[in-house]
């Protein structure tokens, strides 16, 4: 069954996203809302990875390549990583139902909404930053 490989992919994506939230947050301490929210969301990702570790073998994940120190681009990177997690949750959720795996389906039900919130927050924060960053700032 390929499902297990996909759960592993999702697990690694969650671990990488937690790492990325932490690194981006630390790089933008002067944007206190970004710093605190990144810390908060890193903990959400830790929790997701922890739930997945119960149902799959925890494999080492790739480290985030490091922030670019440019707020909009860093949030953009986080968005793409969160989008990968979001897609994985959808697919794993579908497959878990097909496999009649109630435990895995339960994990998906608890977590996928939180990843959607991360995407919505990143989109909101980027919309706020974009006009000033792209049109006004030097």
């Amino acid at each position, binding site marked *: 069954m390929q499902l297990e490989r996909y759960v592993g992919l999702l697990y690694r994506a969650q671990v990488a996203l937690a790492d990325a939230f932490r690194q981006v947050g630390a790089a933008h301490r*002067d*944007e*206190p*809302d970004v710093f*605190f*929210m990144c*810390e*908060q*969301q890193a903990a959400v990702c830790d929790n997701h990875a922890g739930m997945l570790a119960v149902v799959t073998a925890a494999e080492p994940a790739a480290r985030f390549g490091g922030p670019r120190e440019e707020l909009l681009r860093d949030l953009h990177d986080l968005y793409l990583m969160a989008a990968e997690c979001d897609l994985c949750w959808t697919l794993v959720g579908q497959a878990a139902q097909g496999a009649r795996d109630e435990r895995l389906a339960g994990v998906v039900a608890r977590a996928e909404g939180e990843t959607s*919130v*991360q995407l*919505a*927050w990143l*989109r*909101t924060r980027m*919309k*706020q930053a*974009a*006009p*000033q960053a792209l*049109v*006004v*700032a*030097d």
Partner: protein
Amino acid sequence: MADAARVRDPWGARTPYGPGEQWPVRVDTGGDPEADSWVPSASVLHSNGDAFDIGVRDGRITGVRGRAGDRVNRGRLDPKDVYGWRATASSDRLTRPLVRSGDRLVESDWETAMGRIVRRSRELLDGPGGWGRFGFYTSGQLLLEEYYTLGVLGKAGLGTPHMDGNTRLCTATAAAALKLSFGADGQPGSYTDVDHCDALALWGHNVAETQAVLWMRMLDRRRGVNPPAMLAVDPRDTPVTREADVHLALRPGTNLALVNGLLRLIIERGGADEGFVAAHTLGFDELRAVVDAYPLGKVAEICGLKPADLERAADLLGGSQRLLSTVLQGFYQSHQATAAACAVNNLHLVRGMIGRPGAGVLQMNGQPTAENTREAGADGDLPGFRNWENPRHVAELARLWNVGTARIPHWSPPTHAMQIWRYAEQGSIRLLWISATNPAVSLPDLARIRRVLAKPELFVVVQDIFRTETAEYADVVLPAAAWGEKTGTFTNADRTVHLTRKAVEPPGEARSDLAIFLDYARRMDFRDRDGGPLIPWQGPEEAYEAWQRCSAGRPCDYTSITYADLERGGIQWGGERLYSDGVFATDPDHCETYGQDLSTGAENTAEQYRAKNPGGRAFLLGAHWRPAPEVPSDEYPLHLVTGRTITQFHTRTKTGRVPELDDAAPFAWVELHPADAAERGIADGDQVRVESPRGAVRVVARLTGVRERVVFVPFHYAEQAANELTITAWDPVSRQPLFKVAAVRVTKEG
């Protein structure tokens, strides 16, 4: 020392009354009772909107007299108002414009001062993205006509979204919670709910000191027949908590867990109004799932409270037939501020306690005219509680102002105060215009704010009545007329609009804030689409009429309230109570917001909102409690909360200049629990040092009944500024700074 009877007896004699009766009249006065003429006005030293007349003799203010017929105060005066009018005649008022010459500010004239501002404005506006170079940081103390004019010149003249007020510090959470729960800003309840209620719940609201006259009303009910039961939630020991039947002195930073837990108990004990919930709300099942995670024992542990006290509170709330809640800074300036304020709204919706006499919610304001900052769009929101994401609302404004829709900034959320300061710090905002507020004392992390103000490439305009700490950093200082020296309207925390008339001439060359904004608009030559002046109005009444047209058809519709009507006394917009028919402002075409996620502030899209099909139902919004971003540690073991004291206002620019008020509290202090003091060898009256990771202040220790491990410092004092200690962080939804979550240590000074 000045005689200050009303400082010693702030709430005066009781006039008890029973449920459903009219609050008896008690006329208070201050100053000389003999005057040549009396000019109608209301208070600008707090948000209660107490109406009084200004006594004038020989062109000077001689005293004040409460208006017996007014619905808000029925003649009474707050102690600040008994004496505070004297500040207007202070000898150190700004009387001439000042301009920077090297490291000094020198006296100048209006032509030179305005010329410098306009020249800099044009240079900036002509560059690409020119709108983004401007930031306006205003106040909760100007008048409606002034805010609206400022809003139009900023939004349709310069086209900048970077406008906010210091109302962000005091009232942003009230606005955010009302928008999210009910669809639009606007206070649901009325002060007359005090006359009818059988239970009062004060959530983080030390009303005795923040709105003294509202407290008199509550006390008079408590001394009358069939008094309301009373719950107070506050880690401090205050006149309110001492009066309450149940006092929950919770651990700071745990408000949301508390309200979730109380709601769970209330539902479990059958307190939900199922008919109301089904007919008038959305989201009960989701809310139920959230609050079910807060059983009694867990909440007691998180909040540091006894389970029995929580049960008594739940019985008080769940057993009432007419419940009135008030909410203020204990909730608004903590983390998860909007979520906790919405949790109080949830409680009222679940119990069906809204829109009936005695059953209501008052999400309070801190500052006197904060309501108007919100309504008129001087805080970044679009005027008239319009939704920046709704193209039809933007088009309405474009038609009204006769400008293209592209001129009006609606492409992203309005820039909140802390972000405006961040853009100034980064250098993309180059002109910062500060009116009627003193951010060099009132904002969090003052060292950083002073660094920003001192940046040479930032052009700073300060418009004020005194040469404040902030003015010292200005490139141009504009002398403004004070309350009593100008005409206009303002609206209190229960939507009561008052007219304040000019009683005396401003000193020297000082001008009203309205005249200053109009002069800037004229010199900048802002035009509409047909080449006419963008802002055609001249005086306050014309500005008010322009605002009436802007407000037409919106929740805050002023069209039926004229200056002539207001001569007779205060009038509420929207009637006595909002939502008395159970229809909320959530219709997608009418609402002010499509909603936000409470934990992150992430915005919903229009499609997501429409899919919920709210159809006039209110939203029940659950969120889980999280620990605060800064909690006490070994190094900083105490939890700091900051707040007000009754005799002082804002940064004391006025109250510090009035001997009766200044003498009452000339210096800051720190309130400590006796056990925490003993541990540190501190006695009452000792000089101590309060220190956080960001800074320190030296103050006198007062041993009080504050919760153990919690200390309180009032925020008014420039020399001993509590904001040297506070963190730079804010609620993700309302963007209100967290003044009540810093960790500190206190040591005795040698």
